[in-house]
């Protein structure tokens, strides 16, 4: 798998406070990477390091294969569009003027494409309205438009839906999905709004106390979170045969345990297993969401 961002044992210390501690993560190219963690876990600190706003205490990261210790890292950052904490927009200018300035910062030869960008984020009809009079959602969308100027390959969004109303959240979500699908843009979104993130992300990185607790793909997570039946038997072979014949999705966890991702009648399954001389030792229905997965992961204290 190709990665656009990797970090290795990254550490950041502010005086006596360790914000990042041996953080290692991998953001695959073309993914929407949900960066999940509670407030103060180190999400924004990592984004600040990647964007060059702060310097790591130790460890390193690589952007498109260019290491942070390499001088070319500044050039590699030109492939990034980022919103760190709040959108980088001048409140006393209009949306178009803000984008014109961003085009100059990026050294774009002409202002062509500004209209298209405003259209993309749904701000095409703001006219001469100053940004200070924009709603929070409009500012956020303009921030994304500014980050998108210059067509970056990698978009970093720090808490992009904080403070947005439900309509604003839907708009931002659709925009991110469109950018990822139509432009194959890699997106890193830090958030603690798990419900929203689960509608977008293709990969997840869970951070706690400055370290990545687990990285997982959305597919793997879906498997783990699916409504399932966890069953323990004394004859795993018989169970596998029975489930296979029943044509249901299942996953063997151990020699005696399996997860079944289907709605099954307990009596029906028990009768079929009895025919195979297989005893059921335990039977439990599980229903885990991303939130409960996260809570189990971070709240549990022990990580695998």
């Amino acid at each position, binding site marked *: 798998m190709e990665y656009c961002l990797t970090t290795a044992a990254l550490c950041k210390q502010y005086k006596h406070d360790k914000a990042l501690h041996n953080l290692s993560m991998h953001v695959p190219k073309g993914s929407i990477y949900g960066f999940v963690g509670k407030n103060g876990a180190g999400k924004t600190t990592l984004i*600040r390091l990647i964007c060059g*706003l*702060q310097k790591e205490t130790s460890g390193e990261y690589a952007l498109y294969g260019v290491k942070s210790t390499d001088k070319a890292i500044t050039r590699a*950052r030109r492939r990034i*569009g*980022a919103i*760190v904490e709040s959108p980088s927009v001048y409140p006393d200018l209009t949306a178009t003027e803000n984008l014109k300035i961003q085009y*100059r910062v*990026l050294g774009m030869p002409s202002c062509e494409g500004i209209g298209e960008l405003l259209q993309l984020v749904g701000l095409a009809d703001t006219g001469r309205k100053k940004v200070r009079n924009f709603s929070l959602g409009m500012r956020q969308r303009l921030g994304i438009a500014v980050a998108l100027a210059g067509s970056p390959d990698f978009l970093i969004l720090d808490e992009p839906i904080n403070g947005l109303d439900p309509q604003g959240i839907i708009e931002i979500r659709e925009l991110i999905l469109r950018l990822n699908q139509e432009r194959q843009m890699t997106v890193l979104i830090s958030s603690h709004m798990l419900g929203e993130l689960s509608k977008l992300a293709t990969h997840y990185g869970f951070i706690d106390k400055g370290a990545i607790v687990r990285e997982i793909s959305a597919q793997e997570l879906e498997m783990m979170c699916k409504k399932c039946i966890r069953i323990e038997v004394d004859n795993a072979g018989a169970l596998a045969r029975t489930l296979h014949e029943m044509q249901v999705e299942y996953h063997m966890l151990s020699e005696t345990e399996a997860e079944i991702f289907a709605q099954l009648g307990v009596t029906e399954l028990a009768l079929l297993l009895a025919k195979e001389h297989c005893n059921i030792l335990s039977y439990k229905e599980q229903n885990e969401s991303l939130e409960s997965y996260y809570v189990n992961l971070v709240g549990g204290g022990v990580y695998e």
Partner: protein
Amino acid sequence: MNRLISANFARLWRSRVFYLMESFMAGYCALFYRDVYLTIYVNHKAYRNWNLGFFGGLLPIGIVLAFFVSFYIGAEYGSGAIRNKIATGHLRLHIYLANLIVCYAAAVIAFVTYFATAFILGSLFVGKEAVNGIHNPGWGIVMAFCILMVYTAVWVFVAMSDMNVARVGAVTLLCSMLLLAAGIAVVQFLEMPEYTVRLEKVEDVSGEEKTVERTVYNSRYLTGAKRNAYEVAKLLLPSAQIIDVMNIETEYDAKQPLCLLGETFVITGVGIWIFRRKDIK
């Protein structure tokens, strides 16, 4: 860096604070020439120091620039523009220098606005005398540009070192006033005469009381190392140099602009060193 300068200028032309500074400088000049007009045509008195008219705009420029720079660079920090510039791959050195260049350009434009207003109003109200009466205009202009450079370097240094806009505003305004007061005080101390004339009442032989003039040594007159220290302070303080530029009797020395230029380089060098190591939030 050209891209950053271009973007900064684009913002400068849209900045209200910049036009406020321009208006203030023109208004300040107009008020000054109103006084000149009243002196000459209403009170029928002579007016001699035309340097005061043409370079008087330098007197408030430290305070005006402090206000402008703290707002202009404060907006860069406040709006996240500096974050954005770093994240898009610009070097911190270039970001610092681009801000310095644009703030200096704004300072020069503000001074030119004052100068142009002085030229127009002087020519209208007084005539050629107002323009021809300027003592050593070439040196005055060179010094003015150097003074603007030091002021800009100092305020940009303060503004780029601190992300708190309110704190930067308060510090720069307070420092600009202190600098002005210090400059005036230094010049006053250096210009104190060594001897002063004191009037004393004495009794003559007949017992009659008379007032006589007596030349006495001025105990506050600066000598030795203390005088040298004040002279160095005068060279380094842009506010003290302003007093010189406004004085028609000043004899200029190449040391003066060179000192101001050196000061600008040192302040900017330290500012860049700090900014490159700064954790930006």
